[in-house]
């Protein structure tokens, strides 16, 4: 390896590492199949593993989807959780009220989210900067509230505060089924990002991010592009919501419209690097594992002296907040910047990014 820059060696090491982790994540669940278990294979997976892996894949979808509107188009959407909830409730309603089979209901989840995104995108995407960010946040909050509280002839239309209970899907190896379904959704999101970045559409979005007026001048139909990007993000997020509904078997306002998801998906995209293909996905994996670790859901947990166990989840949130601050202040271009060979992690880099943004 003599003569090779250190950054490229690291680049290769991390790529290899990521491939190994990915291969394990994709193949390990197969060890839960009866045929393989009877062969006496080492037991690699259990309920907890599946839950964690499926949630992680779900966040890969959401972070990648946010990247399309937030990272590529530069519109800081803070209400994407509305699309997740709409996807979840679409599947939930079709299955519980209309008795549709899951696989028939699932395609309608992204469709409903996309239609909603077009409807609210047309007025909202006229706003810029803070105004768009908080207006979208308001939509996220308001949709969740409406879904829980709208009544029709005295009956809650969408299950109300008690939520919707879906029948358990009768498939062999349910855990495996939903993990691969969510993984497929994650693969689709990454693939879509990749395709967008290489298309005329993607260049248009980047032009809008860099300078919207200039983009309009060179002939980009900015309104159509922005709404399309918003709808694309909604489609993917709605898909994740739809899978989540049947996987979790229960949907209510709290698990379908958690405001915290908005920030988590943005932080993931930011941590990994916005505007890149794999960045948001990498950020989602790292941050989700960290969140689970801090809140004590992993088999390996942290023991800190003088801190009682029940205070750990609260402390985990404090750590998350501090982490958020450190990333934003010191590495505004995302941690992936260090692994891509563009810059190396050094005191000079940290000082430079600090100087660029401070007064």
């Amino acid at each position, binding site marked *: 390896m003599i003569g090779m820059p250190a950054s490229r060696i690291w680049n290769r090491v991390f790529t290899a590492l990521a491939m190994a982790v990915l291969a394990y994540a994709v193949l390990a669940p197969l060890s839960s199949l009866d045929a393989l278990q009877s062969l006496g294979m080492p037991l690699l997976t259990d309920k907890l593993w599946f839950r964690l892996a499926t949630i992680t894949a779900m966040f890969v979808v959401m972070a990648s989807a946010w990247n399309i509107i937030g990272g590529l188009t530069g519109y*800081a959407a803070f209400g994407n959780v509305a699309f997740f909830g709409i996807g979840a409730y679409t599947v939930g309603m079709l299955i519980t009220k209309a008795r549709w089979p899951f696989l028939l209901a699932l395609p309608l989840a992204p469709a409903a989210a996309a239609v909603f995104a077009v409807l609210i995108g047309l007025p909202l995407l006229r*706003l810029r900067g803070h105004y768009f960010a908080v207006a979208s946040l308001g939509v996220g*909050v308001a949709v969740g509230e409406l879904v829980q509280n709208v009544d029709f002839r005295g009956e809650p239309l969408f299950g109300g505060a008690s939520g919707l209970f879906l029948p358990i899907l009768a498939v062999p190896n349910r855990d495996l089924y939903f993990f691969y379904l969510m993984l497929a959704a994650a693969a689709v999101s990454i693939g879509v990002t990749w395709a967008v970045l290489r298309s005329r559409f993607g260049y248009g979005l980047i032009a809008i991010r860099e300078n919207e007026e200039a983009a309009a001048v060179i002939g980009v139909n900015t309104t159509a592009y922005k709404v399309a990007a918003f709808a694309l993000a909604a489609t993917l997020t709605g898909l994740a919501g739809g899978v989540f509904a049947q996987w979790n078997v229960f949907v209510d306002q709290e698990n379908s419209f958690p405001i915290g998801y908005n920030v988590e998906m943005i932080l993931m995209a930011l941590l990994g690097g916005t505007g890149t293909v794999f960045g948001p996905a990498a950020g989602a994996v790292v941050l989700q594992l960290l969140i689970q670790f801090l809140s004590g859901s992993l088999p390996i947990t942290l023991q800190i002296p003088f801190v009682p166990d029940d205070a750990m989840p*609260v402390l985990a949130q404090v750590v998350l907040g501090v982490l*958020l601050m450190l990333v934003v202040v010191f590495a505004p271009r995302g941690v992936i910047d260090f692994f891509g060979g563009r810059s190396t992690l050094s005191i000079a880099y940290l000082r430079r990014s600090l100087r660029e943004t*401070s007064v």
Partner: protein
Amino acid sequence: MLAGGIYAAVGVGFGLVWGVLNIVNLAHGALVIIGAYLTWQMFAAWGVDPFLTLPIDAIALFVLGYAVQRGVINRIIRAPLLFTFLLTFGLNLIAVNVLLLIFKSDFRSVTTAYSGAGLELGGLVIPYIRLAALAIALVMAALLAILLSRTRVGLAIQAVGSDRDAAQLVGIDLRHAYAVTFGLGAAVAGVAGGMIAMIQAITPTAGEPYTLQAFVVVILGGLGRVSATVVGGLVFGLVEAFGQSIPGSGSVFANAIAFGVMVLILVTRPQGLMGRLR
């Protein structure tokens, strides 16, 4: 309607920080709740009259706000808006969870001898505390407006708000001006929090709705002027009261109505009810 005073008080600090620093401070609700807990702590532990704790809230929150701005937020003030959003969200997360560690998630309330007393007005009882809160909010807003338009510090803040580089050229210490601005915003939030502690039960997570409401209030009134924010707060109080009076809806649609109004205003009149286009 009287709740409008609280909304105005919460909104004024938020609007000041937003207008001058160009930061939407997602930790604003947390500052409000820190003020509320200070009042509760002083009342519960030492029996201090809650109204006397308000100036102490203001001073404590000013110091905290100054330090936070000087130490942390100043470092990313020139970053894209997403970063300031995330940073203040992180600050909010830290503040709320530290409060949770200290005070746990129990409901706390400040109940004084005169808590139930009120002014009877043709069958309506208007609690004195709410009236006083409205009066204090208006006085505080007026003081802030005078401070901004009549004193050297206030003029410096306004100069920094309208053109950062030009302000620096004429010798204004940007870091100090920013920190004072954020400190003032935090101080006003702290006083609002102290008043909230007297009116409703508080928990560490009770601040979040106030951040959103402050935003709506500032949008309603229009960014950049204290008086506009006060009007926004009062209008918001009315809209909310109106929303609660729709038969059958109870108070569950309060947020949805508030945001509906906000989106409507943003789309049709982005400069706010009283604002001027900048």
